[in-house]
């Protein structure tokens, strides 16, 4: 069992947790991920390593509640434990001094882009960061991003904070500004966002790294469930990635694969909420 040492609520649907897992912390690097399973009945879900502390033996994860497992995890408190926590998995991000770089974080993708931006900054790069979300309440870590960026752009779809725009708008302006000579772009966020970021950078010929979030089970190359189509064939996100060249990804295929279990995921949420309601009811009745 792996204990939740700390929990922070970053937004209505975004939670941060610090988990005790010395064996993972020992090896963790930015860009890698872990797989967590809440309890005996749980599914294995992948989450990026947002931060780690080798001395304390802890890993920080940040997740958005989208379905049954993340909702259930989000309902847990400091002191509770999860039954599986395995990693670090996947390849770490390769950090070098590239010159000027752009780091894009969409929604919960702000969490994993942060350690990358920080490492790039420490590596001597000029870091331009662009973060965005649907609405103000979903944004977090503005200050942290600011601290590691030379320039920070903030967008919301509804204009409730920062600029009312998609993240690709400021990106395009930055790319068009010849004086900045962007060497490389990192983008982490929903698949659709990464797709459009890649489409935006392509005409400029700027290499673009995306971190793909396919559905996974084992995370060790055993099931093939996480495979993505690239220009040069299929690869497994868990062992060959999670970072890939955004210009080579078949986004249509990725988006379609992500929706494969939609019906079941909905059923799982309904089942979970129902169960919780019944539990609440039982507790309430028991109290009478």
């Amino acid at each position, binding site marked *: 069992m792996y204990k939740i040492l700390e929990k922070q609520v970053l937004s209505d649907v975004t939670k941060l947790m610090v988990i005790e897992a010395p*064996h993972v912390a020992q090896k963790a690097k930015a860009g890698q991920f872990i797989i967590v399973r809440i309890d005996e009945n749980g599914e294995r879900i992948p989450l990026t390593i947002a931060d780690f502390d080798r001395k304390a033996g802890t890993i920080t994860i940040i997740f958005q509640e989208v379905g*049954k497992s993340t909702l259930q995890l989000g309902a847990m408190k400091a002191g509770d434990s999860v039954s599986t926590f395995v990693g670090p998995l996947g390849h770490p991000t390769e950090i070098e001094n590239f010159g000027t770089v752009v780091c894009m974080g969409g929604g919960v993708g702000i969490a994993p882009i942060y350690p990358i931006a920080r490492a790039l900054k420490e590596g001597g790069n000029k870091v331009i960061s662009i973060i965005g979300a649907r609405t103000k309440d979903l944004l977090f870590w503005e200050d942290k991003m600011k601290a590691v960026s030379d320039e920070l752009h903030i967008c919301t779809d509804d204009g409730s904070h920062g600029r009312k725009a998609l993240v690709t708008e400021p990106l395009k302006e930055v790319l068009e500004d010849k004086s900045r000579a962007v060497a490389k772009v990192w983008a982490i966020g929903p698949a659709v966002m990464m797709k459009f970021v890649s489409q935006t950078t392509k005409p400029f010929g700027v290499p673009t790294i995306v971190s793909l979030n396919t559905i996974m089970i*084992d995370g060790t190359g055993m099931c*093939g469930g996480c495979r993505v189509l690239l220009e040069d064939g299929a690869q497994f996100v868990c062992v060959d990635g999670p970072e890939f060249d955004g210009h080579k990804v078949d986004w249509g295929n990725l988006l379609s694969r992500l929706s494969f279990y939609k019906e079941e995921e909905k059923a*799982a949420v309904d089942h979970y909420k129902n169960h919780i309601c019944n539990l609440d009811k039982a507790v309430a009745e028991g109290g009478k």
Partner: protein
Amino acid sequence: MKIPRQPMLHQDEHVRRANFDEVALGYTEETAKKEAERCLQCKKPLCSEGCPVGVLIPQFIKALREGDMPKAVEAMKVKNNLPAICGRVCPQESQCEGKCILGKKGEPVAIGRLERFVGDYELAHRTCPLNAAPPTGKKVAVVGTGPAGLTCAVDVAREGHTVTMFESLHGPGGVLIYGIPEFRLPKSVVHGEIDYAAKCLGIEIRSDHVIGRTITLDELLAEYDAVFLGTGAGLPSFMRIPGINLNGVMSANEFLTRVNLMKGYLFPNYDTPVKAGRKVAVIGAGNVAMDAARCSARIQHLHAQQNGTQPGEVHIVYRRSKEEIPARAEEVHHAMEEGIIFDLLTNPIEIMGDSTGKVVGMRCIRMELGEPDASGRRKPVPIAGSEFEMEVDTVIMALGTNPNPIVFVDAEGLERTKYGTAVADNDTGRTKKQRVWAGGDVVTGAATVISAMGAGKRAAADINKFLKGEAAW
């Protein structure tokens, strides 16, 4: 009067289609004894020669016949630590029973069923206590908790060495847990064996540890006196045909892991969903393919019961003929009873999808058998112009697997063949890297439970010699 081969009770084929309970119900004491009576107690037992680990078959059958169960267990365990498992999953027809002298004229002794009976007796009564010798202070790491790793761990721990097992998944057992379904090998049998060994011998099992990522092999070597690799061959192969990334195409590993390890058939009480469409095609005809097909059929029937609909179809698509089917005969038989449709001499050439990326069909070509190939089997050759389309919504690839490369990360000097398997000596399990032994599927490629156990046993014997100083590296 000559005793006929004793039948074993089975769950009714129509009932079992909609549940995951064990299909074969085993012998009763009476039928087991009756079957044991049939054995001729050959002086030169061919059955033992046919067994990859040379189980003392006439000896255990004799004890069983005399009603001395503890003695039967003891004779069995000289060579085989896990009889309840082997009795259920070994391909007896091509091993012990295939060689049994009675099979020349009539039906061979049902050695597998007797083995299972003895194994189950031991699970229930624990007549063969696992004792460890006094502690030696030596430490051994066993990577992978499948049959190879388990067998090695037990034999090493019995000598008094401290054994730690590492497993990347959240629980031990390897293919026995994530691959082979409950209806063929109940999880309770596997867990029973593992828990017993862990408890009696103080073997520690560290799940959630991916060697090569969480800890590297070189790091293990810094802490342990010897390391055994039993990491299996879990990396799935996909056919190189168009449409392979469509929704509804998956590896048998993915499907079986969802079903067995994650208990997907109990969704939504368990969280991992699993889909088996209305028309499932399983490509391949090994044990893995049979398991995927039979799990698909069960899920279809469960869904049909829940929703009041018709169950659908499951096809095995195989490019050779019935004679070449590599799966255990019993499983092929069970699959047919359960209504699985066999499309033999058929090979897929393309998977077709709709506009949303979902599988809607498969283009296949008919095959005929040509000259024997390197494996001695007649090579399937496509018949020109025989292409046709099959309507399917799920395609499960069961085409064989290769060793997972992760364990080789940061393990300098651990040699691999061009097939990705570890290079290891057949008799001792020694690899090209000092103090590292390997055995099972990681060395042979996908094989059998008993061959993995045999390799684990041979490696354990050599590790024990090495740790005692009786054999230098």
